[in-house]
């Protein structure tokens, strides 16, 4: 039997843990629909689940529980258990995961409702530091667990892709600084995997995290056939903590549809039926708030049915928590308009700045990275530029060149932080603060070299090249404050790396074997060959002894 002390300890722990009051959980859902001027329609499904009063776990507690063999209890009602377990197991305070496909066109679509629109997969987490359970070990566990949960290759975001940028990824919630009289410092881990492709197998586990799955409420519109047919689609998960709200989980699905493409009359009218092939027929009874907001088109005649509950700043609001008579199928029509023609030239871009990033170069070993940033505002813009590259692309930092209208303007770069890559390991991290003069284009270019990879380091389908993570741009708010605004991602670039002939090892073996065999053969032959004298040139040779003409070559 256990000693009495241990009994008492386990008993008290059991009691205190299991008696802890259940956290109040809350679930809200919101669908935002925004018709765009180029005929597209953006939709964003936001599901937020809050656990009031819950706090993230102290990292040291992971070990303590094993040491003291405490009873561990976790109770969830709306918050998904499978995600809660992961957050708890690895003591994660804040985590953001996004899986997207396509390129978000900031200029014509504006800023997205959910900022995480990086192409492919992106994961970043803030975790409390602990001497005993290292952040990197937990980061690895988190990656693998999320990989299993969402059926995505997030596990591949290893040390070769992980960085910790200083300013671009600040916590979006709060970080509890004091845990039971113990100060905790936090560390950021960020990684992206642009080659990851989001598909149905990622959406299915995502939907299972929702309290009503895809069976009721606005989530019933999430039809994978239509969603993955959209011009741009993606999903994301954000877990943050706030002192007042507790732990907050935001699950979001974004998609940009093109109703003109699917319309037979080339019209840009749309409805839930035409976009999703579904309508909302049952309400999710556990949602405390369930709303649909439709931004109304401007400058054109339109008709919206059914009648909204309320109008607010050019937004029609519907409440889907009580669906009484018939399924909700919101439709927006443009009765005066015939077939829609895509605007050839956009009047004005919707964002303050536009970015294009290209990779140039004719050889497989060197190249040039060029980024051009166009300031659309009438005043200067301060921007933080964050570039992360796997080690196989190395920057020649001394060739960093800033030009406006062909003029060299090095003074526009105010702050630079550079972490050089480590061969076969850590990636490059470059953080630069740039000032872009009013209404002009700043061109940043830099020469790079592409490394020669080891035979085993090449990915499957090596000739396709490597997808390089998108660069991140953040606008600085005001001149003196160190706070930054919304993140803007560039599109990923494809980098071509010299590839070997993959049957090479066998060729090398055959080649060297042949050489060795050849050398061996000739030396051996020389050493064991019998030399015999032959009489030549003499007249007797014609009728000479045949024996003497015997040739005994090997």
């Amino acid at each position: 039997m256990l000693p009495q002390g241990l009994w008492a300890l386990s008993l008290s722990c059991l009691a205190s843990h299991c008696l802890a009051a259940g956290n109040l959980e809350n679930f809200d859902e919101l669908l935002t629909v925004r018709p765009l001027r180029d005929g597209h329609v953006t939709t964003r499904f936001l599901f937020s689940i809050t656990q009031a009063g819950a706090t993230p776990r102290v990292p040291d507690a992971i070990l303590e529980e094993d040491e003291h063999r405490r009873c561990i209890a976790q109770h969830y009602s709306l918050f998904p258990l499978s995600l809660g377990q992961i957050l708890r197991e690895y003591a994660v305070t804040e985590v953001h995961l996004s899986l997207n496909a396509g390129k978000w066109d900031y200029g014509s679509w504006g800023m997205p409702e959910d900022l995480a629109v990086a192409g492919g997969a992106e994961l970043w987490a803030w975790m409390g530091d602990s001497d005993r359970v290292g952040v990197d070990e937990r980061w690895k566990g988190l990656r693998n667990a999320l990989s299993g949960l969402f059926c995505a290759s997030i596990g591949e975001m290893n040390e070769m892709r992980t960085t910790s940028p200083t300013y671009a990824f600040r916590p979006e919630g709060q970080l509890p600084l004091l845990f039971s009289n113990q100060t905790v410092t936090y560390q950021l881990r960020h990684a992206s995997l642009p080659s990851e492709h989001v598909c149905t197998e990622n959406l299915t586990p995502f939907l299972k995290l929702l309290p009503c799955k895809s069976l009721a409420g606005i989530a019933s519109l999430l039809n994978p056939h239509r969603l993955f047919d959209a011009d741009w689609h993606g999903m994301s998960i954000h877990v943050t903590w706030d002192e007042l709200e507790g732990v907050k989980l935001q699950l979001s699905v974004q998609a940009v549809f093109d109703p003109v493409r699917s319309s037979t009359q080339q019209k840009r009218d749309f409805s839930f039926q035409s976009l999703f092939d579904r309508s909302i027929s049952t309400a999710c009874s556990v949602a405390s708030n369930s709303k649909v907001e439709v931004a109304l088109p401007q400058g054109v005649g339109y008709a919206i049915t059914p009648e909204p509950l309320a109008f607010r700043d050019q937004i029609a609001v519907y409440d889907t928590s009580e669906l009484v008579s018939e399924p909700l199928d919101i439709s927006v029509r443009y009765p005066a308009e015939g077939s829609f023609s895509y605007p050839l030239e956009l009047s004005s871009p919707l964002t303050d700045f536009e970015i294009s990033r290209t990779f140039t170069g004719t050889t497989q070993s060197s190249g040039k990275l060029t980024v051009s940033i166009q300031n659309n505002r009438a005043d200067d813009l301060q921007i933080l530029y964050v570039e992360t590259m796997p080690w196989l692309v190395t920057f020649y930092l001394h060739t960093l060149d800033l030009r406006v209208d062909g003029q060299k303007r090095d003074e526009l770069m105010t702050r630079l932080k550079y972490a050089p890559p480590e061969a076969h390991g850590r990636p490059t991290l470059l953080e630069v603060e740039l000032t872009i003069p009013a209404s002009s284009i700043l061109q940043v270019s830099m020469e790079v070299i592409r490394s020669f990879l080891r035979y085993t380091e090449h990915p499957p389908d090596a000739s396709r090249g490597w997808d390089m993570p998108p660069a991140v741009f953040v606008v600085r708010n005001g001149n003196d404050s160190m706070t930054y605004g919304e993140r803007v991602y560039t599109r990923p670039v494809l980098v071509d790396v010299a590839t070997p002939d993959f049957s090479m090892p066998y060729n090398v073996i055959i080649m060297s074997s042949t050489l060795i065999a050849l050398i061996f053969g000739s030396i051996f032959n020389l050493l064991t060959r019998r030399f015999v004298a032959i009489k030549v040139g003499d007249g007797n040779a014609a009728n000479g002894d045949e024996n003497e003409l015997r040739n005994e070559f090997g």
Partner: protein
Amino acid sequence: MVQDEAVKNVSFQSDRTRRTILLSYWIVVLLAIPLWWSTTSIARLRLPEERVSNLHSRKLKFPLRATLEGGLTESVARDVEEALRRRVHELRLDGSFSVDIRSSSEGAYEVSLNADAKETHVEGRKLILGAKSLSSEDMRDIISNSLSSLWLDGFGPDQQIVQFSPRYRLAFSLMNEDTAAGGSPLGWGVQTMINREITPVLQRLSALHNFTIESQVQFFAPLAFEPVKLKDGSFGLTEEQLSVFVNSAEWTLSSSVSNDPVLHFVIFVPSANRRPLRILDADSSPTKSSAFVIPQWGSIFIYNPPQSTESHLTLSALRPAFTVFRKQLLTLLGVPSLPPGVKTSEALSDWALNALLRRRAYENAEGSKDTLSSIVSLVHQIEGMPVDKDVTEDVREALDALDKMYNIVRDSPQLALQYSARAFSRASRAFFNPGMLALLYFPPEHNLAVYTPLLAPVAVPLVAAVLREVARWRKSRR
């Protein structure tokens, strides 16, 4: 002829030199073979095979010692002992138990009489017989029957019981088939019920296992089949349907963070238009029971809410479910129940706990023995299987733990269980060591095939030269 002689006299042209060269080539080749063999052979360390085969002769022998008190004579003790020995023999457990019943002296268990009571109950390690109006002949039977069921019941394989693990996760789930149909509970007082019903049992079991508790509520948990509609308007689950009741594709029950075995306890609330849902027996008539156990998986309780449901499941509504869950938790963990007619005030009697300790220690010991002998025979069978240090160390540690267990089993079943658990985990780790698979997919034939372009052109002149020399030597002798 003169020139021929001259050529012959050149030192390297002599037969002797040529034969020495040829011989030295062959010596190098022959010497290189063992080197090549040793550098390319698979590391196969020796396993302590003798110790493994000796295990079969060793048996766990649990002492069952009891003292009879309160006027029970030595002859009663002898009769009871005799009856119990017979019972052990009938169960073919002769090797595993030694029975020792005395009327005096210290024993691990006590049996005493209470002449004023009719009911039999257990208290700690004491069995108190209600001996009111009992003849001494009856008494002997009752004592030996009670002892035999307290000690020996449930010993042996049982398909329902989960495999031993030092840590289990208990997952409590409230599954609503369809919340949209209305009348479904959205919350439950699970924490209070766990504290009331489950925690006392877990505390008693903490000597064997640690537990992690989690609970969740699901609002849409559809079934994969249509329940049968009955004549009275209610719905039924046939026996076949019970076996496919858990819809693992739709119910998110699995977890990705831990490898501990999970025991599920599910309260299933049928959709409002499928109530009441009943369990049918073989004749398709509804049974009174509303719960069933899925062997080694967990337990399911079907809750049909009354007409006027609140959105929160009250404690009184949960009580029947949790009473069932407590019983089925014990069943799944292999805790033997008390024989009929024997009562106790404790959550789990010492008798049952000790019987469980013995049972688990026995299972683990048998399991580790089997695993160890499987490793030995597997290594014998597959010659290309590497055996590295990790494996031999794990095997040795398992054997050491088994030795310790055999030595301590008389004094402390508790420690014996811990040693047996360690032996079992080490033996399994050795058996599943990934290093043992490494070379199975890369056989020596493959190696040889890759290097044929080198070996064949080298071997041909070597062999040919030998043949030629032999031919020449025979010719010169003639």
